[in-house]
């Protein structure tokens, strides 16, 4: 048992040591504590994974956390197939990114602080995936949000960074508002918060309704939708996606680990974990699928025109998360988790690769000031190409298998499925375009920065490139555990591994159809590549012309559909203005006025009292006694 508890506790110990001793003692040696800790977790996770492969799932309660009346909940861990896969993703990518950070954060003033927060994050994320009940899940859920807040605002002297951290936390609170209510509703329905008991009772709760402000609502649907609110916030889906692009204010390793590979996928993990509940509510499932499908294409269109290298990748992340929800919504849970797992590798690689570029250019992020980096940074270029081939879905690489599985399962899911498949495939076209656009703008053509910068261009050190190369291996090979049966029998090993938790997806199609879907995705991947090549290599003046002729559309996309402005105008500003003018005025004048009876009474009273300041105590006693006497007298008299 100790072995499993140590998985999260090792990074936690690293956090404590670094945060308490880092400032004065450890300083720039912080990685000597953090890296072994997270690597230790990785080793233990591997051993747990092997045990699960042998068919032993673990469910332990460590201690009773809260007990109040009939409400009880423990701190306890569940390690089954699903959490085992998540453990592997978190600790393996975590280790690589920790090592990468040694190089990337070298010389930063808050080096120890960075590793402390990163360790706290890994701890929180591990608690999140290992929890065996909803409240501990909620603990991890909020704790990763906290770390995200710290790390986005890591360079807190920048207003933009401080704003972005705050925004991320508060936007997530909107989602957590629903999530928290959902958790409480689960207990009120099932009398427990433990996964196994809740999922065991799910069938019995089917068809129950609850009266909500006068309407009869299906209980399970309500619970699922409330939980999904949390997922929408954490995984940056429409309409709560606005925090993720701003989160790129954080250091690049943070963007890779938290805002691409792990934390933002927590929503996907949670919905997959709750599949026994979601399966029973068609409304909830359709909501998940549509949200995912729409987000996938929505974010991809924004990514088409962004110029900040990290923002392009950020919108790409939002879009890819949309794919995962699309899979969950059509009941293909294992396909969603499969994509989560492959995405973690190629997206972490994209971010770390862009970090390598930013590092070489001394914090330039605008792609318009890049170009021609291919010959200066061959390793970074090579891994970028691999990641791009993977994300765009070129056959043989990781992204191809998982994305194809999602699109195929979506295609099979009825009429709505066909429509969503079309959206997904179109999004894949856009993905290919913006991914190659990024490559061409960054690595091809002529360098567009200053001579000073060009002079200093260099490939990153080994401590950065080695993790990149290892991630590149993942971006190629991670998909080989999920080869569709139509190509290789028993090729879908991850699907079969996860089946005890996530079940088998429904729906069957002919081989011809499956090849058609596959062919369509390969075709759009190549088409997007071709168009990007055409626009950014062959005729570089074309994009500007196109942008000018389609000015309104271009501006709409560049400004991210003005969603931020909309929220600011309809939500943020009104609250602040109401607080400032209405509420404060109300408090000062109306309530004070009414409660005080005559305004200024107190002032008058105090002036009176000031004149007889020495007699204040006796006055007080006198008033008390007199008042009491009068009232008692009146009362006795009237009796």
């Amino acid at each position, binding site marked *: 048992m100790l072995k499993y508890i140590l998985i999260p506790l090792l990074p936690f110990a690293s956090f404590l040591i670094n945060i308490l001793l880092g400032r004065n003692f450890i300083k720039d040696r912080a990685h000597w504590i953090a890296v072994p800790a997270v690597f230790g977790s990785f080793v233990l996770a591997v051993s747990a994974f092997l045990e699960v492969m042998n068919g032993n799932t673990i469910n332990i309660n460590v201690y009773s956390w*809260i007990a109040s*009346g009939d409400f009880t909940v423990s701190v306890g861990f569940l390690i089954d197939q699903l959490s085992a896969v998540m453990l592997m993703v978190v600790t393996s990518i975590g280790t690589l990114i920790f090592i990468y950070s040694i190089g990337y954060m070298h010389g930063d003033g808050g080096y120890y602080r960075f590793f402390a927060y990163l360790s706290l994050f890994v701890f929180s994320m591990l608690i999140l995936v290992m929890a065996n009940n909803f409240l501990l899940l*909620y603990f991890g859920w909020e704790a990763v949000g906290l770390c995200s807040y710290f790390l986005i605002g890591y360079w807190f002297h*920048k207003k933009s960074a401080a704003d972005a951290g705050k925004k991320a936390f508060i936007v997530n609170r909107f989602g957590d508002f629903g999530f928290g209510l959902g958790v409480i509703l689960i*207990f009120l329905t099932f009398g427990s918060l433990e996964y196994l008991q809740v999922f065991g009772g799910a069938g019995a709760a089917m068809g129950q309704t609850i009266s909500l402000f006068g309407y009869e609502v299906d209980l399970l649907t309500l619970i699922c939708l409330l939980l999904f609110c949390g997922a929408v916030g954490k995984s940056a889906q429409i309409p709560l996606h606005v925090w993720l692009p701003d989160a790129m204010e954080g250091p690049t390793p943070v963007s890779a680990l938290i805002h691409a590979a792990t934390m933002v996928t927590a929503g996907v993990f949670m919905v997959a974990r709750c599949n026994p509940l979601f399966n029973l509510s068609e409304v909830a499932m359709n909501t998940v699928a549509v949200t995912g499908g729409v987000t996938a294409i929505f974010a991809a269109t924004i990514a088409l025109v962004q110029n900040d290298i990290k923002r392009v990748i950020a919108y790409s992340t939002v879009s890819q998360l949309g794919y995962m929800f699309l899979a969950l919504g059509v009941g293909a849970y294992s396909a969603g988790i499969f994509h989560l797992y492959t995405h973690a590798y190629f997206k972490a690689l994209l971010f770390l690769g862009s970090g390598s570029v930013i590092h070489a250019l001394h914090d330039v992020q605008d792609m318009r000031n890049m170009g021609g980096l291919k010959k200066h940074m061959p390793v970074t270029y090579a891994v970028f190409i691999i990641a791009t081939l993977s994300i765009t879905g070129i056959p043989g690489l990781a992204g191809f298998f998982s994305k194809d599985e999602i699109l195929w399962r979506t295609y099979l899911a009825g009429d709505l499925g066909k429509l969503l498949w079309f959206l997904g495939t179109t999004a894949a076209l856009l993905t290919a375009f913006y991914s190659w656009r990024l490559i061409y703008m960054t690595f091809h053509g002529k360098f567009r920065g200053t001579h000073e910068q060009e002079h200093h261009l260099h490939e990153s050190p080994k401590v950065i490139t080695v993790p990149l190369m290892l991630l590149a291996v993942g971006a190629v090979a991670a998909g080989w555990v999920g080869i569709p049966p139509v190509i290789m029998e028993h090729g879908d090993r991850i699907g079969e591994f996860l089946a005890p938790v996530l079940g088998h997806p429904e729906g069957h199609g002919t081989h011809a159809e499956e090849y058609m879907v596959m062919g369509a995705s390969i075709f759009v991947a190549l088409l997007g590549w071709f168009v990007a090549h055409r626009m950014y290599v062959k005729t570089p003046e074309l994009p500007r012309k196109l942008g000018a002729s389609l000015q309104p559309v271009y501006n709409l996309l560049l400004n991210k559909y003005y969603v931020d402005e909309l929220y600011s105008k309809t939500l943020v500003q009104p609250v602040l203005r109401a*607080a400032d003018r209405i509420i404060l005025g109300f408090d000062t004048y109306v*309530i004070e006025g009414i*409660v005080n009876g005559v305004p200024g009474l107190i002032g008058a009273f105090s002036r009176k009292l000031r004149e007889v300041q020495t007699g204040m105590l006796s006055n007080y006693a006198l008033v008390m006694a007199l008042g009491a006497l009068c009232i008692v007298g009146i009362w006795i008299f009237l009796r």
Partner: protein
Amino acid sequence: MENIIYNHLDYSILSWTVFLPVLGALFLLLVQGRAVIRWISLLFTLATFVISLPLLTHFDKGTHAMQFVERHDWIPSWGINYFIGIDGISILFITLTTVLSVLCVLVSWMAIENKVKEFHIAILTMEAGMLGVFVALDFFLFYIFWEAMLIPMFLLIGVWGGQNRVYAAIKFFLYTLIGSLLMLVGIVVLYYTGGRTLDILALSSLDYPFKLQCWLFLAFFAAFAVKVPMFPVHTWLPDAHTEAPTAGSVILAGVLIKMGAYGFLRFSMPMFPAATKFFTGPVLILSVIAIIYGALVCFAQKDFKRLIAYSSVSHMGFVTLGLFAFNTQGVEGGILQMVNHGIITGALFLMIGIIYERTHTRVIADYGGFAKLVPWYAGLFIVLTFASIGLPGTNGFIGEFLIIFGALKARMLYGVLAATGIILGAGYMLWLYQRIFFQDANPDYEVSGHHPVSDLTAREVVLLLPLFVFVFWIGFYPNTLLDYMHASVEHLIQRVNVTEMAGSGKMIANYLTEIF
């Protein structure tokens, strides 16, 4: 050690706890010299804390009955007794009071230079008064403590307060006085209807006619609602908090405003269960308004301390919401949240006092970039910020979660509305933190020629540390505290809910037409 104390003090341990600070205050009258006074004051508050510890260890958690009971005739002809004891509802407040009192002495070490002796006498008598309120089981005794507590608090604000101290002190005094007088009338009525006794336990087990219950409930409510403070009688609180010296704010936020909610639990609910049920709706609505309204007002504050003061209105709204949900989770969450609020807001006021000693400004706009200037201070402050927001792992989460759980179970709508408070809370606290600690230092402030601000001293770390231990202890293992409450809370809920069955809807409806 607590065994030794327990064996020596035996039956009078509770009296010792209450009156040791009084002894200390008397002793202070005899000595001279600031340093001596401070050390003696510290010694007595520490000693009080130490002898209050056996109460925790020797408390029988299995019963709702009063424990450590002491009962002596006092004025037999009026039926007045010296009658004290504690149960699962009051015990935690004893410890909270004794802990915070020690910290109040410590934080005033450097801050109070003026009338040191009088200040520490006020603190010690204040402590005795508060402890007395929580242990008194005789109405006469209770009322003496209740009013006695007001005087030192009034002086703390009025003498050692900020610029606007006289206004704030008198406002505080008037508000509380008016409430208290109505309660006094209620007590007198109870004395006569209850058979000329002032025994709180005896009076709590009687069944009063519904109409009388309602009037009495309102009379007591006046006193308690002002203390809590509930919307709309909260406006004394921001002034009192802001103007009070740090120690005063800590006591005010930590203990004093808990007395209103404690009063609901000790008096209103067991004595007037039918009326309590009857008035539940309005009280819940006022609670929800307090949560949202209190949070919104925080957004408009320009003053560091005033913002935290207004946040108390919001947090105490959670407390009353939980208590009036009348289920185990709601009531236990409410009590726990009172303790939590004492810890978190107490610590916040301590920290504000600490930084004020260095900067001499409470205007938020004067700050900025303090994370660089005072990193340890900033690190501790962020912990409190998130505890206040109710982040899991801190004590704030457990309290708020249980309250929202209880509210949702009792009345769906109020639970949902209360939960919006967690979004607003995150908003104003993180915005505050950003303005104080992040970005660049305020240039206007820099040029005004203040000394460079220094980080926490050893004394300050020592005085803050206990509260941080509690923040995480309760966050990770709240059962330590919840276990004390179960029996008493179950008993209370049963009393209220049984009445509901006896006092059928018809009866209530009849009285409804009669009252209004």
